[in-house]
């Protein structure tokens, strides 16, 4: 198991190197010159030239890439073209917002997805099953941003019960801490701020979770149906074990293996979905920030964000694979040999 883990971690290096190369090629080689965008169309040639020199954009492209890699390894991604702040600082100011949203969404999607999936597998071809099928179909067919818009129209525009933008009311904003407002307000005992942060989270979480909820529900249902047809389930039932216990201890535990994989993969795709959700709800995370930076040609930021998200994504996939190997010993041994 340890050998397998180390091998997998080493395999990440070429992938992340490749990601850096791809991002670098897109942003630095194929993208148009950022100078006119940053300085304005009417800036003088000399000013643009000086600006390019100052940001190292006139160096040979290979050097630029080597510089970028060297600095990235030490967590230094340069400075933003606009604020002149270190990119890492800009990102870290926004990262907790995205993390908090993504964690809430994946928790919501996993808990309700597994629950709905199990119920519709156990009560196959009943009203509950059909309802969850329809919900899943809607979930994968509706654009995230439209779902977000509909939620705003309903809960903010019509019922006036939920705030449509932002993370928290400015005066309740916690100072310092982790940047995860739910955690910060709870640990400092400020329940008014906690309630406000929670209210701000409800709609973005729902919008972001819907797609994953649909996928997890379908996966759980089909995985449960497979397991419920196995001989050992029939054996368990024939021994007189209660139906509830059979489902919970015998079927779900085995069905969880493929479900874990799907949940892990969904967590990765949530990071992509966050780009849209954050834009709709003006959520101050790295998703909406990246969109703005791409439009403004703020390359250092974009390179850093894509690299960080890709790192998180491959790390999550690695963790999922390890959990998978842990849950199912058969996989562990066969992979260790190979």
């Amino acid at each position, binding site marked *: 198991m340890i050998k397998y883990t180390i091998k997998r971690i080493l395999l990440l290096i*070429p*992938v992340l190197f*490749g*990601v850096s190369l*791809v*991002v670098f090629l*897109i*942003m630095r080689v*194929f*993208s*148009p010159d950022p100078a006119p965008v940053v300085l304005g169309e009417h800036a003088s040639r000399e000013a643009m030239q000086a600006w390019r020199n100052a940001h190292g954009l006139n160096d040979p492209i290979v050097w630029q890439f080597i510089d970028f890699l060297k600095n990235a390894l030490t967590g230094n991604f340069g400075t933003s073209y606009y604020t002149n702040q270190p990119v890492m600082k800009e990102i870290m100011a926004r990262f907790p917002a995205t993390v908090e949203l993504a964690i809430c969404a994946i928790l919501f999607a996993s808990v309700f997805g597994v629950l709905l999936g199990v119920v519709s597998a156990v009560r196959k071809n009943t009203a509950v099953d059909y309802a969850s099928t329809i919900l899943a*179909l*809607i979930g*994968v*067919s*509706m*654009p*995230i*941003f*439209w779902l977000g*818009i*509909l939620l*705003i*129209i309903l809960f*903010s*525009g019509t019922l006036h019960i939920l705030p*449509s933008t932002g993370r928290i009311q400015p005066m309740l904003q916690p100072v310092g801490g982790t940047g995860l407002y739910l955690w910060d307000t709870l640990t400092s005992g400020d329940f008014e701020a906690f309630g406000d942060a929670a209210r701000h989270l409800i709609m973005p979480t729902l919008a972001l979770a819907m797609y994953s909820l649909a996928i997890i529900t379908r996966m759980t*249902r*089909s995985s449960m*149906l*497979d397991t419920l047809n196995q001989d050992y389930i029939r054996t368990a039932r024939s021994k007189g074990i209660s139906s509830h216990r059979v489902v919970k201890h015998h079927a779900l535990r085995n069905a969880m293996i493929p479900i874990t994989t799907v949940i892990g993969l969904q967590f*990765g*795709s949530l*990071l*992509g*979905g966050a*780009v*849209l959700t954050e*834009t*709709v709800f003006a959520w101050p995370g790295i998703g909406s920030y*990246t*969109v703005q930076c*791409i*439009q403004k*040609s703020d390359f250092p930021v*974009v390179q850093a964000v*894509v690299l960080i*998200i*890709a790192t998180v*994504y*491959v790390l999550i*996939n690695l963790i999922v694979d390890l959990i998978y190997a842990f849950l199912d010993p058969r996989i562990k041994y066969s992979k260790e040999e190979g």
Partner: protein
Amino acid sequence: MDKTQDTAAEISLSTQEFLEKPESQWKSMWDSLKKNKAAMVSLAFIIILVLIAVITAIFPQVLPHDPYEQNMTKTFLFPDGRYWFGTDQLGRDIFSRIMVGTRVSLSVGVIAVAVSMTLGVVFGSLAGYLGGKVDSFIMRIMDIMLSIPSILLAIAFMAALGQGIDKAVIAISLVSIPEYARIVRGEILSVKENDYVQAAKVIGDKDGRIIFRHILPNVLSSIIVRATLGISSAILDASALGFLGLGVQPPAAEWGDMLGRARNYIFQAPYTLIFPGLAISLTVLAFNLLGDGLRDALDPKSRQN
């Protein structure tokens, strides 16, 4: 006695049919698809969409209003008998704009899938058939692309390529190549070892011929299912790019772009945001249901779930 004869006749007949019509796989697929109500309704809906796209392109006069004509005295009219879906922030008829937008969304979906599928099939076939270093090289590149969330990668491509719906098609095509390459590679690995492929090798067929004549026809059905589902995700991705303001140039009508531009008026005129989103969702839903139906028709096992 009679019964035995009948059965024998039936068997010989079906053998004959089998020998005469090698395409019967497609007929049986169609027969089984026909029984799937959801898939048939979706197919009908898609045909209607195609008709709308074609007819509004050739005869724009069938539209109740000019989809591009601005009228600042008629902004945000509530839906009524004259403006079925209301008017937008520039006084344009939303119904006519949605009708015209059908063409954009359908062509983006179909072209993006065609491009990414072709490239995916080429890379997947090469990787799966040749194996070894070619395989690891191609699949590593695919892994790298898969480790960046596709919408983020597409936005980055858009930044490099510049705005515009044609650029959006390229961006969406590029980011979906790995998906097809993976499927085709997997299928080819499983088909490659079959006796008939080995036999073709023994009689000296060239690699290209083996791939095109013996292997690809056997993986075609799964590619078709994937492509149908791929159209729905391409339409979703295109609408997302449009929503972020990276899609069509004004005054062109595209569903995602309509939502992105009307978003600032969400409380003033929510109906401007209902219908374009509904159009995206129903279209995507139709392609999803048709894709699911095709998959079930091809693989009866999956129907149990």
